[in-house]
């Protein structure tokens, strides 16, 4: 069932149809949200908690959505906001909200020393990505989506930016990631 059909069910006056809508949206979005939240370094229990909060918001506020075509991006907007609320609630995620808090060079300088000890290239990249995810989780999720062959259109729905802004964001993401993995392939020119 498509999201637009589910919206109709959720906006229905009938309790039976509303319940059906609730179940359908759960089936549809749960795996995607779980992937999204897990990629953002939430553990399984935390992810479920945030999924529950997001779905409750989506279901109970669905009647405020006037344009069915915008329902999908609206759902992702709710999912993102719920995640940020979660980050704000728990101090351990204080760096997650503003990814630009830490300057690249600080991290890169720190991990370069660690990477020098590693000879295996994949292990080296793994370490770089781990730091990249910590510093810029939003951008790490972009890399994940690109790996999964998401189109820029689909990415824009998920991150809540215009298509043009998304293209720029994707391009910047590549540039931001580069210093984290650059030294790992040295000697392969």
């Amino acid at each position, binding site marked *: 069932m498509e999201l637009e059909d589910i919206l*109709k*069910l959720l906006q*229905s*006056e*009938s*309790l*039976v*149809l*509303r*319940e*059906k809508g*609730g*179940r359908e949206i*759960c*089936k549809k979005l*749960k*795996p995607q949200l*779980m*992937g999204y939240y*897990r*990629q953002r370094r939430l553990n*399984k229990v935390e992810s*479920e908690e945030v*999924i*529950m909060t997001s*779905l*409750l918001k989506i*279901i*109970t506020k669905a009647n405020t959505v006037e344009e069915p075509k915008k329902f999908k991006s609206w759902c992702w907007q709710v999912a993102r906001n719920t995640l940020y609320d979660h980050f704000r609630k728990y101090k351990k995620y204080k760096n997650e909200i503003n990814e630009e808090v830490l300057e690249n060079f600080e991290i890169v300088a720190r991990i370069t020393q660690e990477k020098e000890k590693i000879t295996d*290239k*994949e292990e080296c*990249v*793994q370490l770089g*990505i781990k730091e990249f995810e910590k510093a810029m989780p939003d951008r790490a999720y972009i*890399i*994940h989506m*690109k*790996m*999964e*062959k998401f189109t820029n259109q689909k990415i824009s729905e998920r991150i809540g930016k215009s298509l043009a802004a998304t*293209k720029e964001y*994707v*391009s910047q993401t*590549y540039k931001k*990631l580069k210093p984290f*993995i*650059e030294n*790992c*392939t040295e000697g*392969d*020119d």
Partner: protein
Amino acid sequence: MKKNEENWFATLAGEKVYGMNPKIRLQARLVRSVFKKRAEEINKNINQDDDYLEEKLIHELEKIGFLKKQSKSWLEKLFDKNNWLILLAIGAGGVYATKEYMRSDVIQLVDQPQLIEEQVVRSKTGFWGNWFDAQGGFTGFWSRIQLEKTGRLEEPIPTSSTQCSPDNLSIKGCLALANNGNSAAQFNLGLMYEKGLKVEQSYEKAFEWYKKSSALGNKPASINRDYLIDNELILQ
């Protein structure tokens, strides 16, 4: 996007790119490998998930009242600020009904379910027909609006059975009425099969019930039956 960048993202997505810088290719492949492993690990957990989250969600929705009707006392209902229009309409309905059924030589059918669904269908005729049923009861105009707006009725129709109503649909309740030739119940069965409400979704069965219901003159059923045909959801 620069060529190197394009090639990098293409390699990240697992595509084969010829003529690209080997160092960039290696980087992209290594990044892909790390992200792939991570994604596989996450997906493994997702697939193991059962339906308990869904049940928990429904329970929460019931708890916050989203899936429950708000129960008010009859006094609260009567004097609700928006109810003056309904009161007026009920009063007018009463007058209309009295006028229509003053004579005692009209045979009245007791608890004839078919009349109830006809409220929806007959709403095309006349001003009063839009608002009241044959007994002068206020029927509302929601179904009519929905029909005009979407061309389809996607809400269950009320019947004489509480087991086959918009708020409580059950296959048993609707079947009992439908097998007695109640076109509203037949319509509801069609809707249940079309939407997969408490039954396994089947356009074929939905079509059969819509067909039976429309044969008894149920207009929404014939619209929904035509919808299934027009959208090629069933093979004719």
